[in-house]
């Protein structure tokens, strides 16, 4: 007979499973500087490649002379489009169904575009080689304004597409037009607008910015000419997709390509795309027979690899006099730069922008998005958000505030009136989504109470009076946001990238001594997968998380998956992990029943063991079962204890949250100070509260950056004005305020463990919270809308234009 100590509670705690603030297993190596990033990879004879980049935003490339460069000691080769053309690699497909020049083919379309690839024995020689390449340009008229790009006589940017009236996503109506994507019911929406009590109309601009991960992009390509195998290490958020794309464009059989994502120093969407550097490194390795490394520097990264946002969102929102929203209309002009290299699911060229009805019960809506080419860098990636969800959230949360102004109503109350009610879930949105679950009113009341909303409004009113009396020059802004995300792409029936279904996977092997390894199709870039996925598994299979290794990122060993972005890892791969764990448990049940000499149905699961029903002292722990699986012949059961699951999610998940920012604004200098930031997140089941908190802190900090200063700005000539960290704002500890985190828990009804994903919520909710705070501070003085980022001078200008400087 077995001893029943430790207790069930102690055994549960020992697993460090769901709900445990387990310390991150990754941190031991990261905090000691022992991470292994792509630039740490060193191989014998490794060469280094780097780009000659265009100083012009739009120019014809008349001639490239490499003669002097080839004389630089250490320089071995200078690749141009001409060299890549015979291989068909001078252009490459983008994830958005467009194509992109790998190296300038006759012209350049943005500043920083890759013109030639210098291959040298080390990066110093490559840098000297770049200086020595002589490129003759003929400047062409530059288009940086997406509206002007559609003028009838605007310069033709994409000459390669001239005369093509059909694009990857339907008809093109102009030579600089990419697509028009529509959702909802235009006619019905317009008729609601025409007869509404109140219509608020505004242009909401979400400026161009950049994910700017601390580690820029890079790779090492190594072609082994003896066995014909290509190994590619790189900063890939989706290693399997890279393998498939690399095989398709290079013609190398997929089994001969191994893609490895080592440690990644932040991705935020910047490392989803396929970049010319990857292609050129592969070609250079094939040509030279040596490994070739390419690593961007910070300026390359900011200037040329995927930007984010740049959406001009024209909105109209209709409501009754009492504030019940009756319709929403949005037309977006999307600036995609010189090539359409967005990383969205194929059928969604504007991502999930159609989540822009937000948290509100809006009976009818219309969304149209026109994608446009300009002389700017390509990209349009989901910077710490699911595809275009932060644009959508910003849009609706600004429109709500503007409607509140129009109705002369409190913005918290306006939201309360319009929230989708708890009992309406699953909720069918006017733009086509089925929201799985939510309880917005509960979250909202909790948030308002936590910050003493009534008290804040009173203080604000007093402040306005004091300001008018000349007693203070500081205004108080209360930034409200209630956001709903759509993450976890996604159901294979409507989500794919280049035809690859957006399922994900987990493969588990239990070792005889009761430990395990699980491999996934995702790849952590700082999210802590090695910590949290082990926790999911610990709760499913009853082995301690500390005894479970999580491995990702090597396509030779990991099961196929679509990678990590769009908060999809927990909703999709996390679900696969739980499902694979359940397969393990099902087999374990049979083994336990055999060992206990009872029928399968007579044992029941109890934290870390199967016990005989009604006789809890008769049990077999998972560790005992694992051992038996490998050393006993059990009739009718194969030896071993392994499982694999490919999970095709039935729906997206819909995390939500209520964020409130209280901000002081100095009217005379434009300087702001964040007095309080409260973030309530509902991400369903909480796997590791500490990691959730960390994700919220990081995400809100990125939101702070975007809302208050971070941008990729161009001058009229298409020069990048914010190409270094002197001008591109990355907050340090100094600029980062304190955050108060909170939560409610509304589990996803369709996810195996009810989890919804949280990594991106704080960016989605944070940006409107900060921006709304700025706007709210000036509401009493008549401000309706101003554009981000709210840096000192823009805030100052707002005050100035409102006549607050006397």
């Amino acid at each position: 007979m077995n001893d029943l100590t430790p207790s069930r509670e102690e055994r549960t705690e020992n697993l460090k499973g769901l709900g445990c603030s387990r310390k991150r297993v990754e941190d031991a190596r990261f905090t000691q500087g022992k991470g292994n990033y792509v630039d740490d990879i060193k191989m014998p004879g490794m060469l280094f490649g780097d780009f000659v980049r265009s100083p012009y935003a739009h120019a014809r490339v008349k001639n490239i002379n490499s003669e002097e460069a080839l004389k630089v000691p250490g320089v071995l080769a200078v690749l141009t489009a001409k060299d890549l053309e015979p291989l068909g690699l001078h252009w490459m497909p983008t994830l958005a169904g467009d194509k992109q020049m790998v190296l300038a083919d006759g012209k350049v379309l943005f500043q920083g575009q890759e013109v030639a690839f210098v291959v040298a024995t080390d990066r110093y020689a490559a840098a000297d080689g770049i200086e020595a390449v002589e490129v003759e340009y003929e400047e062409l008229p530059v288009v940086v304004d997406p509206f002007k790009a559609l003028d009838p006589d605007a310069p033709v940017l994409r000459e390669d597409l001239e005369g093509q009236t059909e694009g990857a996503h339907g008809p093109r109506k102009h030579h600089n037009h990419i697509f028009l994507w529509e959702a909802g019911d235009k006619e019905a929406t317009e008729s609601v607008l025409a007869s509404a009590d109140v219509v608020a109309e505004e242009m909401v601009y979400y400026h161009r910015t950049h994910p700017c991960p601390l580690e820029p992009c890079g790779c090492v390509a190594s072609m082994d000419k003896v066995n014909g195998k290509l190994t590619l290490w790189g900063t890939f958020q989706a290693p399997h997709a890279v393998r498939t794309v690399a095989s398709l464009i290079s013609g190398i059989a997929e089994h001969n390509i191994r893609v490895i994502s080592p440690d990644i120093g932040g991705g935020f969407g910047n490392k989803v795309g396929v970049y010319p550097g990857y292609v050129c490194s592969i070609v250079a390795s094939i040509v030279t027979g040596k490994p070739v490394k390419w690593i961007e520097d910070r300026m390359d990264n900011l200037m040329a690899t995927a930007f984010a946002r740049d959406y001009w969102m024209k909105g109209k929102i209709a409501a009754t006099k009492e504030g019940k929203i009756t319709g929403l209309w949005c037309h977006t002009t999307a600036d995609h730069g010189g090539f359409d290299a967005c990383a969205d699911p194929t059928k969604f060229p504007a991502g999930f922008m159609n989540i822009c009805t937000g948290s509100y019960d809006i009976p009818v809506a219309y969304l149209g998005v026109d994608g446009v080419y300009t002389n700017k860098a390509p990209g349009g990636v989901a910077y710490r958000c699911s595809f275009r969800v932060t644009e959508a959230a910003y849009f609706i949360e600004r429109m709500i505030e503007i409607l509140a102004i129009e109705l002369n109503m409190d913005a918290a109350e306006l939201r309360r009136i319009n929230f989708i009610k708890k009992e309406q879930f699953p909720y069918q949105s006017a733009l086509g989504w089925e929201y799985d679950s939510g309880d917005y009113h509960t979250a909202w009341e909790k948030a308002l109470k936590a910050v003493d909303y009534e008290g804040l409004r009173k203080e604000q009113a007093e402040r306005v009076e004091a300001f008018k009396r000349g007693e203070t020059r500081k205004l108080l802004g209360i930034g409200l946001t209630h956001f709903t995300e759509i993450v976890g792409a996604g159901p294979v029936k409507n989500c794919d990238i280049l035809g690859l279904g957006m399922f994900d996977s987990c493969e588990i092997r239990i070792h005889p001594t009761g430990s395990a390894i699980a491999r996934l199709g995702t790849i952590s870039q700082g999210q802590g997968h090695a910590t949290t996925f082990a926790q999911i598994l610990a709760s499913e299979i009853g082995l301690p998380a500390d005894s479970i290794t999580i491995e990702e990122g090597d396509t030779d060993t990991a099961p196929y998956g679509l990678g990590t972005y769009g908060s999809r890892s927990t909703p999709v791969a996390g679900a696969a992990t739980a499902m694979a764990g359940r397969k393990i448990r099902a087999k374990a049940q049979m083994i336990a029943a055999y060992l206990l000499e009872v029928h399968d149905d007579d044992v029941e699961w109890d934290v870390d063991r199967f016990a005989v029903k009604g006789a809890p002292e008769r049990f077999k722990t998972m560790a005992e079962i694992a051992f038996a699986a490998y050393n006993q012949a059990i009739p009718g059961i194969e030896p071993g204890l392994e499982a694999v699951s490919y999970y095709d999610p039935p729906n997206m998940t819909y995390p939500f949250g209520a964020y409130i920012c209280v901000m002081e604004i100095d009217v005379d200098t434009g300087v702001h100070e964040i007095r309080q930031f409260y973030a309530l997140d509902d991400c369903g089941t909480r796997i590791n509260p500490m990691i959730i908190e960390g994700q919220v802190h990081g995400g809100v900090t990125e939101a702070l950056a975007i809302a208050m200063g971070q941008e990729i700005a161009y001058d009229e000539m298409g020069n990048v004005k914010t190409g270094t960290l002197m001008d591109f704002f990355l907050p340090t500890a100094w600029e980062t305020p304190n955050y108060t985190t909170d939560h409610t828990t509304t589990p996803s009804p369709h996810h195996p463990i009810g989890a919804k994903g949280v990594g991106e919520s704080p960016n989605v909710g944070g940006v409107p919270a900060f921006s709304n705070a700025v706007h709210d501070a000036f509401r009493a003085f008549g401000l309706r809308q101003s554009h981000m980022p709210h840096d000192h001078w823009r805030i100052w200008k707002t005050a100035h234009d409102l006549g607050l400087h006397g």
Partner: protein
Amino acid sequence: MIPARFEYHRPSDVSAALAILTEHGDDARVLAGGHSLIPMMKLRMAAIEHLIDLQDIAELKGISVDGGTITIGAMTTQHELIDNADLAKAAPILREAALQIADPQVRYVGTVGGNVANGDPGNDMPGLMQCLGATFHLVGPGGTRDVAARDYYEAAYMTDREDDEILVSVSFPVPEGGYAYEKQKRKIGDYATAACAVQVTMAGGSCTAASIAMTNLSDTPIWSKDAGAVLVGTDCGPGAIGAAVDAAVAAIDPTEDNRGPVEFKKHVAGVVIRRAIERAISRA
């Protein structure tokens, strides 16, 4: 972001450094903390063939408060300014200003000499030195020479220093009265949108001396003689402060950059100058 090839020299005394400087003329440049020079080289905006690192030259280091004079060796780091208790007592404005330069990492290596010699209008020390009425001590092949900080700056990156001269130290009289260094910047590690250094002395409710200088509001630091003069003899009431601010703003000529357009900078300058004056008076 990789500089062109260069030779690296590391002399251990000033005369050796001067010899290398004389030998290579235009092709040589001295290196202090490198936090202004190296970025320019990495951007290949400056191509320098011979870099003469001054860090082994002991005679260029140190802070002394001697009688009525403070002398700071050119190779003294900005961090050392913050860390020196004697200096904090004798001239607290230096500590207040240095704490607003860049970030701790930059300050551990960035030097006083590099900061004042550089001639970048964004540097904070030049305006401060003008406010304090400092003297710069230079040495060249022809011997030593003193230049007043208020005469040193000619235009952006153009100074009175000859290419073959090295800045040895800066010195200034121990300041008296109230002080303030006020700076508006976008973030930690940023140069000023507008900054202002003020020293004021008061006696019997009346201002006896005032010195006001500004940073990053023209292509050189600006010491406004008029702004100081306006305050002297007054009670430093709102009217006098307003007149001083007006005089100071009249002396600047900012240019548009990513921090904002001219109109904004002038307005913010007025606010920053006013705050600096008020804080200095409150401490006088």
